[in-house]
């Protein structure tokens, strides 16, 4: 690996972290009482 490559790895890691944060908050953004109830049923069924 070259010296400058670490910067790219750090940028990629930050992008990945942002994607995870978006996924974590997506559940809150999209959940409605009915959908939450169905999610619980789906999780229980699987």
């Amino acid at each position, binding site marked *: 690996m*070259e010296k400058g*490559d670490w910067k*790219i790895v750090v940028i990629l890691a930050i992008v990945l972290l942002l994607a995870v944060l978006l*996924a974590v908050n997506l*559940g809150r953004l*999209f959940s409605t009482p*009915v*959908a939450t109830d169905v*999610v619980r049923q789906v999780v229980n069924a699987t």
Partner: protein
Amino acid sequence: MNLAESVLVRELLRSLDCMKKNPVFVLAVVGLDLLFVIFCTFIYSLVGNQIAAHAVLIANQVSPMLAQGQTGLLAKLFQGSLQPLTVKLLVLVGLFFVLLYVGYVVLQGLAWWFSSQVAQSAHSLRKYVVLFAKLNVLWLVLFAFIKLLDVFLGLRYQLIRKFAPSALNVSAPIITVLFVALGIVVFLSYGRLRAREFLKIPFLQGSGLLAMCVILFLVVWAIVDLFSTARFELRLLVQILFLPIFVLIRVYMIRVVNHVRA
């Protein structure tokens, strides 16, 4: 021609040699593969459950329509009380694809770059990641198109079965063949990061390369399968221990593609 002199066998032996010389990079690829599996499971558990919930809510309203043999279901999904649910579902599926794309480019892009370093195929990381991201936009669009076709034809089949219960599902094997063909094209494109690489590899060598990769994969599958009744921890350990086979498959493919196209 002597078997040991053929490109396929010679490059396989050289790939193993390259892996022995770069154990740190091999470990990095194994780590990235593991991280990718964890990332996919995590994303699926968060977004997949929301998608499943909205699909169930839509199915609850669509099922009576299907039972009555109503047609024009696709248009009905965007009317009345179904519209907000359908829009939400489409947004969720879109975001799911975007998140998977980001994770794939970051984790698998790095894994393929490390593999190309092991295969002694020189690329700068910056150039490689940019090319990898561009190439995968095309593959993602094609994948989404085939998936949509799958859903659309699947819905039509459900409806056809209402009128003709013994109707054959002709689209299912065609969709499977399309997915397999896309998988092969995608895999071969990573050798030189060019979309049309599969057209430029001689047919016999391309088929031989794919056959060797499938054999390597099946051998590992058979070994892992021997532990299918073992304890979970042991099964997991065996699966992790055999992860370097995916590094070998990558390195081998990159070396063969670069050799036949040199």
